[in-house]
């Protein structure tokens, strides 16, 4: 029996998230199963924007190098605004899960990331924590795969300054 699951890693800084992204690339890991979520803080003195040009989404602003790199390699892009907090940006296949969840319940009172995480089988207590960490400027890196794959990724993610790496079986 091949148990499908998600490995979710929490990183405190964009530098740590960038490092793990490089490590995943270097190991020639199949990035099409990886998703990234993080917050782009909005401050009056800074500009953040995105555009869709020639089939590609590009960002500019403080964290744009990280987001552009993720956008180059992963498919799927979404963002939503949390009032007084900033933009929550999601890149990767988690966006499809999020959109499916939102289509099924467009009147939902929950945030899109909560809808997506709940749909992949993360329990509500854990979703609360992931959401609060995102709002506190942490980054989530998610990898979907079989038991063997996510265990392999777990070891890699754990060695790159992750605050936490948890495997969620749905």
């Amino acid at each position: 029996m091949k148990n499908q699951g998600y490995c979710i890693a929490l990183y405190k800084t964009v530098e740590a998230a960038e490092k793990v992204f490089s490590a995943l690339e270097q190991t020639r890991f199949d990035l099409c199963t990886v998703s990234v979520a993080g917050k782009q803080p909005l401050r009056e003195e800074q500009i953040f924007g995105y555009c869709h040009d020639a089939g590609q989404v590009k960002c500019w602003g403080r964290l744009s190098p990280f987001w552009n790199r993720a956008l180059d390699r992963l498919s799927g892009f979404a963002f939503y605004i949390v009032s007084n907090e900033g933009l929550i940006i999601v890149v990767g296949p988690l966006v499809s899960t999020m959109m499916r969840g939102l289509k099924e319940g467009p009147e939902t009172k929950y945030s899109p990331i909560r809808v997506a995480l709940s749909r992949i089988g993360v329990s509500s207590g854990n979703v609360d924590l992931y959401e609060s960490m995102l709002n506190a400027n942490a980054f989530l890196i998610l990898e979907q795969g079989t038991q063997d794959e996510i265990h392999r990724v777990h070891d890699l993610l754990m060695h790159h300054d992750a605050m936490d790496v948890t495997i969620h079986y749905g």
Partner: protein
Amino acid sequence: MKFQSPFYPDALTAFKKSRFFSGLNQQEIETMLQGFLRETWKKGSIFPSQQTLERFRVLIKGRIEMIKMHPDTGRELTVMLLNPGDAFDVVTLVDGKAHDVIPQALDDLEVLSVPMSTVRNWINVHPAFNQTLLPYLGEQMRTLENLAADLALHDTVTRLGKVIMRHAVPGDMVAEPHATPVKLVHNLSHETLARMTGSVRVVVSRHIQHWKEQGTVDVRRKELAIRDLGELVSPELKEPQEIKGNRNAIP
């Protein structure tokens, strides 16, 4: 598991309360925690047998039912109910062989897992860990012994009464001033209670309904509370006539 993890405090508290790790000091527990991997499993999940052979798990949140199933009839019996702080699979840990049980999540679970080889190493390296392992194994053996004795020596209604009594917490009054809330078996389906009793759902439902009508137990929103402890201690006296008459037919 890393010290910086936001889930670390919960895991540390669970380890300190666990009978399995109770003999270890804070430093030893913290060192061991570093080697664990955090996993969550949804309610109803079944742990793959290969995983239980390779990885040792400590339950942090939720309950796990260890089920034995008849290969032909599909009838099931719960041989053990694991709670936060319990570890599994200790049988595989001891003999290194695959264990023919089905571990099924009764709730959404949080567990910490570590390779079996690491735990076997801890048994050699940490004498305190070794000392807590043996009493824990003894307790599990006692539980299995009680189950075997109950199945062989008592009828269904007595076994069901014993299952409920075993998990009751006298004195911990919550909703009803004269009711004893049942700590573990609450929120469990009659199907699960039947597996724990070694019977079938229909029989368990009938007994609980009868006790409810007698005022012995109270069932509200799937919470089971004992209103009359004395009646449950001697359940034979309160057995429904239609069941008593067909006792031989009841599994």
